[in-house]
């Protein structure tokens, strides 16, 4: 009943190929965007920003990026943490080298630099596939973290080897540093999330995305129908790394403010983002968001309920949190291997017919 298509006629090709063909979806989308841009900035506080919104938004960009490579391009990558580190360190070097430039451009250029690095590490994908490629990207992960720890130039020779974000602003409003207002940091990240999702959506339904998916589904067949595997695979690596790099730059500059590469961008970060897209749904924009929300919100929610609400001991709650999150991951993988996006799709199908399923 909610998702009625009856009476929703399309009279032009552009109408027919829009992202949200059903009116109810479209309205919901506009409402979400409106609330995110116009309402949340007025009510957001420091706790909401730093504990929930910023990690969710930034992980959503990282998940979008990895989804291009793994979900659409079919190339398994375990190097996400390393690529995020490239974005973070590129952003740091740019911020300290050109203090007068708008931080907005630093983040985008940091994404560009990560794209180049991703391109380089994508070269092995032309010869190897599947598990072997996963191992090659794993090498990238360890190499990049080692590099940023080893070469003092990357952290400007600071004694501790940490990088910390100096105060930078957009139009005179602080975006990084401790004096940042919650709404400013939120809006800054939201703009990146919005544009990223919009670009990724349009890339994946255009020629580029179709090529990636053709390679994913069967690379020999794709080659026969005229898809250049070299270009398709490398472009998937470059575009994916671009978004992952942006996520890394935001993670360092806006969210954490100070970063230690081994701890923040270690292998566990790669796995976390990979879990996000697997749980959210491979090859789905909505899945990237759902997966990021699931992995960010669930631990915070559990902690607040168990420690804050029920007054349990913190260690007991933390251990239980591992078990519950782990259990839910298994549950989802068994019951719905295509992730939350597929669950959502099924729910939509049901809603379409409700309340008369026959």
């Amino acid at each position, binding site marked *: 009943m909610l998702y009625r298509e009856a009476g929703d006629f399309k009279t032009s090709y552009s109408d027919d190929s829009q992202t949200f063909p059903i009116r109810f979806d479209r309205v919901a989308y506009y409402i979400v965007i409106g609330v995110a841009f116009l309402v949340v900035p007025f009510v957001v506080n*420091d*706790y*909401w*920003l*730093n*504990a*929930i919104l910023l*990690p969710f938004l930034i992980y959503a960009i990282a998940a979008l990026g990895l989804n291009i490579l793994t979900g659409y391009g079919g190339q398994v990558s375990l190097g996400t943490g390393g690529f995020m580190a490239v974005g973070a360190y590129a952003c740091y070097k740019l911020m300290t080298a050109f203090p007068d430039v708008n931080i907005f451009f630093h983040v985008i250029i940091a994404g560009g630099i990560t794209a180049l690095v991703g391109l380089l590490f994508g070269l092995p994908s032309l010869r190897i596939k599947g598990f072997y490629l996963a191992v090659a990207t794993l090498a990238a992960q360890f190499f990049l973290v080692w590099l940023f*720890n080893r070469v003092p130039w990357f952290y400007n020779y600071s*004694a*501790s*080897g*940490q990088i*910390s974000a*100096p*105060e930078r602003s957009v139009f005179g409003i602080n975006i990084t*540093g*401790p*004096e940042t207002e919650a709404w400013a940091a939120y809006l800054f990240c939201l703009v990146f999330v919005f544009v990223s999702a919009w670009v990724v959506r349009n890339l994946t339904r255009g020629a580029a995305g179709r090529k990636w998916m053709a390679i994913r589904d069967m690379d020999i067949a794709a080659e026969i129908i005229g898809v250049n595997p070299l270009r398709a695979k490398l472009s998937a690596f470059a575009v994916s790394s671009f978004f992952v790099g942006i996520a890394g730059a935001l993670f360092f500059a806006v*969210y*954490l*403010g*100070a*970063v*230690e590469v*081994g*701890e*923040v961008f*270690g292998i566990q970060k790669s796995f976390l983002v990979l879990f996000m897209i697997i749980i959210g749904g491979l090859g789905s924009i909505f899945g990237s*968001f*759902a997966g990021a*929300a*699931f992995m960010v*919100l*669930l631990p*915070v*929610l559990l*902690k*607040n*309920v168990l*420690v*804050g*609400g029920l007054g349990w*001991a*913190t*260690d007991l*709650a*933390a*251990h239980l949190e*591992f078990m519950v999150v782990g259990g839910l991951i298994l549950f989802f993988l068994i019951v719905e291997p295509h992730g*939350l996006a597929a669950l*959502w799709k099924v729910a939509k199908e049901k809603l379409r017919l409700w309340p008369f399923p026959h």
Partner: protein
Amino acid sequence: MRTKLATLALGTAIAATPALAELTFTSLSYRTGPYAANGIPFADGYADYFTLLNERDGGIGGEMVELIECETGYNTEKGVECYESTKGSGALVYQPLSTGITYQLIPKTTSDGIPMHSMGYGRTSAKNGAVFDYIFNYPANYWDGASVAVRYLLDENGGSLEGKKIALVYHNSAYGKEPIRTLEELSEKHGYELSLLPVDHPGQEQKSQWLQIRRDRPDHVLMWGWGVMNQVAIQEAVNIRYPMENFIGIWWSGSENDVLPAGDGADGYKALTFHNVGSDYPLFDDIQQYVLDAGLAAGAGDQVGTALYNRGLYAAMLAAEAAKTAQEMHGTSTLTPGQMRDGMENLEMTEAKMTDLGLPNFGPEFSVSCENHGGDGYAAVAQWDAAAGEWGLITDYMQSDQDVLNPLIMEDSMAYAEENGIEPSCS
């Protein structure tokens, strides 16, 4: 899904905000993860001391103490979440027990006007209180530790380290890298040869580092380790039969958890410390009576008297003393974080005070001032006796080489001030 979860989270976040107690302290602890073995005793000691104050004295200056514990797992992201969720509760001071989280919180706490005490860890140059208003790291910091270790080695070697080889095995993170600068500076002064052996998080894999030590045979090995890394390093040292008395750890590498797994082989291992060891103090009788026997002990209650338990206790004691100082200064029993900061900046620890508290000769005497947020840099060397299963101090408290350290601290803190546009001032 998303909005539903968010609403739920909001509801619980509001419900989770505790009632505003008069004196709120936070414990950003880690009882899980690869560093839990070291995080648990510290958190227990910290909590037990406040429980004791509440039970025995009715709090501090007549105000009950509320301790909010938040689990960080030694993870910076969770540390940020913990900080944001507790800062609204009127928390007086933060002690995150993690150098990474400390770095994260330095700008945040300064901007929010809440003091942070990184006792024996964190950013060394925070000692310069003119730049770091709200950050304290008394009674000793990493550079003091490095310097005291070298001074001890000088004494051992008859006053000269000329031509000696010293290896530093360190946790490859901000924490482990802290002493390098000082050790390099000191190697120029004393003429020893320094070699650096980084160990990556979490430190379970150290075969290659110890193979190198076996090959190079350095005269002394220093260690900056934490968590499981300590146990592995000591075990590896035993495996290559490195003489334990030449192996010195920083105070974070000197707990029972670190040496017990290596058994008798660890006998003679040394570690620095800035407070005394054991439970042979009058205060521990009170803890037995008011906390343990009353069933109010934090955690399992089996850590009393261990090195890290004592350190947590010492941290809580310093926080409580600073709160008392603040109460006297401002003539009020309820405190704001700003008043707590004043209390910390005017804290004075004397032998008489410690004896009054039931902890005679427990730590060095020191006093804090705006110019000096870091105390006087006294530390002692403790040695492990595997047969008795306890640590024992083998030296008096020694002062670090202030001539070398002060210029370094000045240089580093001024660089920070310039980077962040801070005007150093002591008003």
